[in-house]
């Protein structure tokens, strides 16, 4: 049976995690369909049709899908679920919101955040903040799965030529409506797919001080992240949080500044290729996972680092 991948997008662009989710899908089956539900979202469907490995794109273009509300989207998934052996989505807030709802309507289990595909029915997923890996086998059809995108190498965004088919909208449960959104506007790369990330913690002491990280972020084309403590203290907004209950990242280079390295933070970044820690406390647990550490006052080290990078 084919695999269906639910795409996340803003009616204009695909979220980058789709490419990694397609990669996981191609490990299951050769026939990979992408579902694009939105409003005035044709460009998104066209972009999805170009992704390597995709055989068909199904587009459901209707005002009820303008905002990604869980209730109508889950109903749409249910309307096509019978055709598929697996339904996949990136384990983003979007995916985690919609997928379990669809699974319950289908009376099947959902499998969250898989980091490896062992076979068509067996998957690996981190539990306990990544301190253990569970290998799980599911007997349900379809298998509803959210994918830890950092664990799968993305497929090419170009080169494919899938067909695009219209899918009629499903019944609208009409029990929720969109009111407003308040999104962080930035020119920096997306945290979940950035090659370099520099994150600040409680040691930054204020939101104002986060500006100190911007020079380095500019030079390295880095995304800026944060620990929960920095978010809770109001230094930066919630979308910056890296960790077990925030975003999972795995860049080539992760620079942790004034972050102690609690288990919950490590859960979100310990799969980074190279980790750098800057902390004034040489006992900070972050140094146990760092490839390179500097013990020192960040307010002294950060300007020096910025200067050294410019050299």
């Amino acid at each position, binding site marked *: 049976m084919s695999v269906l991948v639910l795409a996340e997008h803003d009616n204009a662009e695909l979220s980058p995690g789709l490419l990694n989710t397609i990669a996981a899908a191609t490990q299951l089956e050769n026939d990979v369909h992408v579902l694009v539900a939105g409003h005035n979202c044709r460009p998104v469907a066209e972009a999805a049709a170009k992704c390597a490995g995709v055989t068909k794109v199904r587009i459901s273009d209707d005002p009820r899908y303008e905002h990604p509300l869980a209730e109508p989207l889950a109903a749409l998934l249910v309307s096509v679920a019978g055709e598929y052996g697996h339904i996949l989505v990136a384990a983003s807030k979007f995916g985690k919101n919609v997928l379990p709802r669809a699974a319950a309507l289908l009376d099947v289990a959902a499998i969250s955040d898989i980091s490896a595909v062992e076979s068509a029915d067996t998957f690996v997923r981190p539990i306990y903040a990544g301190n253990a890996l569970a290998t799980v086998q599911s007997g349900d059809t379809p298998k509803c799965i959210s994918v830890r995108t950092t664990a799968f190498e993305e497929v090419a965004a170009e080169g494919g030529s899938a067909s695009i088919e219209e899918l009629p909208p499903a019944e609208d449960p009409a*029990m*929720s*409506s969109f009111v407003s959104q308040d999104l962080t506007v930035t020119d920096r790369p997306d945290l979940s797919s950035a090659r370099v990330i520099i994150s600040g913690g409680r040691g930054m002491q204020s939101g104002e001080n986060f500006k100190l990280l911007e020079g380095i972020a500019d030079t390295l084309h880095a995304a800026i992240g944060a620990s929960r403590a920095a978010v809770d203290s109001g230094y930066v907004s919630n979308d910056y949080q890296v960790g077990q209950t925030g975003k999972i990242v795995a860049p080539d280079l992760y620079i942790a500044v004034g972050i102690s390295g609690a288990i919950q933070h490590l859960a979100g970044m310990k799969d980074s290729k190279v980790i750098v820690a800057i902390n004034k406390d040489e006992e900070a647990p972050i140094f146990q996972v760092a490839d390179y550490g*500097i013990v020192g006052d960040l307010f002294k080290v950060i300007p020096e680092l910025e200067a050294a990078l410019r050299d």
Partner: protein
Amino acid sequence: MKVLVPIKRVIDANVKVRVKADQSGVETANVKMAMNPFCEIAIEEAIRLREAGHASEVIAVSVGETSSQETIRAALAMGADRGILVQSDAPLEPLSIAKLLKAVVEREQPGLVILGKQSIDSDNNQTGQMLAALLGWPQGAFASKLAIGDGKIDVTREIDGGLETLSLKMPAVITTDLRLNEPRYASLPNIMKAKKKPLDAMTPTDLGVDVSPRIKVLQVTEPPRRSAGVMVQSAKELVDKLRSEAKVI
């Protein structure tokens, strides 16, 4: 309006968990247990709704072993009015938990169910969304702010790009994110009072729910460990190493 709050007993967030040698799971013997932190936030929010006059009663429900009574007592000590234990010795999957909770909802008829967004042990992030589906109710997942209106609730949600506000028809299911509130500590007098609050017990059979598992856990293993690297003395040395040794910049 009643508010139902499902809470889970988990290994305390500060414990460093160990995988069992036989790879059947993680070590739970003699390990400190606690209420799942997101559930504490859910209890706190429900109590605040009662204090603000929106809710008449806060009911804490937990599915688990008899020891989950302790977790329910902790919720009662925070200020929940009454508890329900659904006894199950085997750990259940989110779909089964959601079915049990649906049966409890049908008995109690709450106007709102507030769950945590995620169990910090199994890291599922599923139960609330599944319960909402089974009830045919709308869902406000990852909430950082609630505002109750006339027959509806506005929920501000933490999403990947920032914040989003939805309006849901009531009754509804909410799951909590970290910024919704800061849970209170139970005072000593309230801990004493909690011992006298009603706590009912029932079983999945009493509720008529089939909880047979859909997923088999084949093994639980330890992830590859990262080892500590080297300390460098200066920013300049760091940049040299990142360029010539690690080759990441």
